[in-house]
């Protein structure tokens, strides 16, 4: 699989539109979902997905299968772009309590689509259940796009502590989400 993925990305790098389509077919759902999670509106998510795939083409020649599987690479590019957008966005409050964290709504009326609202509500509940430091670090670093150093400064906590809290918090979220899904 990794050789095939390397070949695919080489073709993408060369501007092979069929290869680009193949890449889109494989990852459209995953990229779209994470965009919906992090962007305030559906329109913003659509714009972000478009930019992400253009960026995937621009960086395709840097893909190294020895360093990451293709799904990891694609999602890394996607998340980095989404975090960049978050950081450029003017809508990012300095502090947020979990119960007021509007997520994709961000003060705007919630998007229609009960499934979307339910999933986001679920995510917020799971985050609210985390220990305070993990919850705060996840909100700021993972959902709002602050760097770990910025979070460390904001919380006046050592960087190593922030990193550990984020890592453990993300692991717990995944475990709980997987358990809910399986249950």
């Amino acid at each position: 699989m990794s050789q095939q993925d390397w070949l695919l990305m080489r073709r993408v790098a060369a501007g092979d539109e069929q290869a680009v389509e193949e890449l889109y077919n494989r990852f459209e759902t995953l990229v779209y979902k994470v965009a919906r999670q992090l962007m305030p509106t559906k329109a913003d998510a659509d714009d972000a997905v478009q930019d992400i795939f253009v960026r995937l083409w621009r960086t395709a020649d840097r893909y190294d299968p020895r360093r990451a599987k293709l799904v990891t690479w694609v999602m890394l590019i996607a998340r980095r772009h989404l975090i960049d957008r978050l950081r450029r966005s003017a809508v990012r409050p300095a502090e947020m309590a979990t119960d007021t964290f509007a997520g994709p709504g961000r003060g705007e009326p919630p998007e229609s689509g009960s499934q979307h609202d339910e999933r986001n509500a679920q995510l917020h509940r799971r985050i609210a259940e985390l220990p305070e430091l993990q919850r705060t670090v996840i909100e700021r670093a993972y959902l709002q796009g602050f760097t770990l150093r910025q979070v460390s400064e904001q919380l006046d906590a050592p960087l190593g502590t922030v990193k550990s809290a984020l890592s453990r918090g993300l692991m717990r979220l995944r475990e709980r989400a997987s358990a809910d899904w399986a249950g």
Partner: protein
Amino acid sequence: MTSPKPMRIEELLELAALDAYGLLDEYEAELYTRSFHHAPVAVQDEILRIQAAIASDQSALPADLPSPELRRRVLDAVARAIEEDARELAPLASIGQRFAINSAHPPAARGPLALSGQFWRAAALIMVGVSIVLAWFGAEARQRADEISRLALQNNTLGQLEVLLDPTFKQYIAKPNCRQHLFTNRAAGTTMLAAVYLDPADGSAFLLVLGAPTGVNYTLRAVMDDGTTESIESFATSTSVVGFRIENKARIMTAVHWEIVDADQRVVLRTA
């Protein structure tokens, strides 16, 4: 100033998720990558596995699905970006016109060509196409493909390609009925790459060879479905890039294979 020590394995595993999510800052991400490459292969494999599982996990993501309209929009946007990027490369065509090419046909007029984005995209596809063929022969071939790509992108070869891939060739790759056939190596020690482009509409073809050893005679021939072979054109190599157009060969458009043979009639390259 000495480089910081690589991260311990425990640290690498603990931070795998943050690295996968792109949440490490620039310095830490670089240290993580360096430490990753220092780690035992088993640890690297484990990290790749963990990160892929994290990246593909949808359980915490919304249930929304992308629309078909978004698909069209994204593919169009990427196509536009590719086209725009290729147009910006067009001025490179004026570089490296000093080098003569070997061909039985007179070279096209020199001078900067108005090369479209489609031309450069096709040229890049040729490089990748042959790279793909080589890649099936393993890591050594992959290295060779990189060398060929670098060769092709050097100024002098770019100049050769510019002359070879003239508007005539552009017509081939622009036509919807133009068919590309890539050659694969059939003789040990062969490192040439080649492709033949066929236009059944007018019975013409264009042969492109990269990485050819110099001072060698070859013949392009067609293998018909009854097993007979027809010699198309003989050529000698004085440079590593050879390309020429073949006219009025309507019958051989139906060839099942194309071959390049050496002076001893040994098959060096063959299409699938």
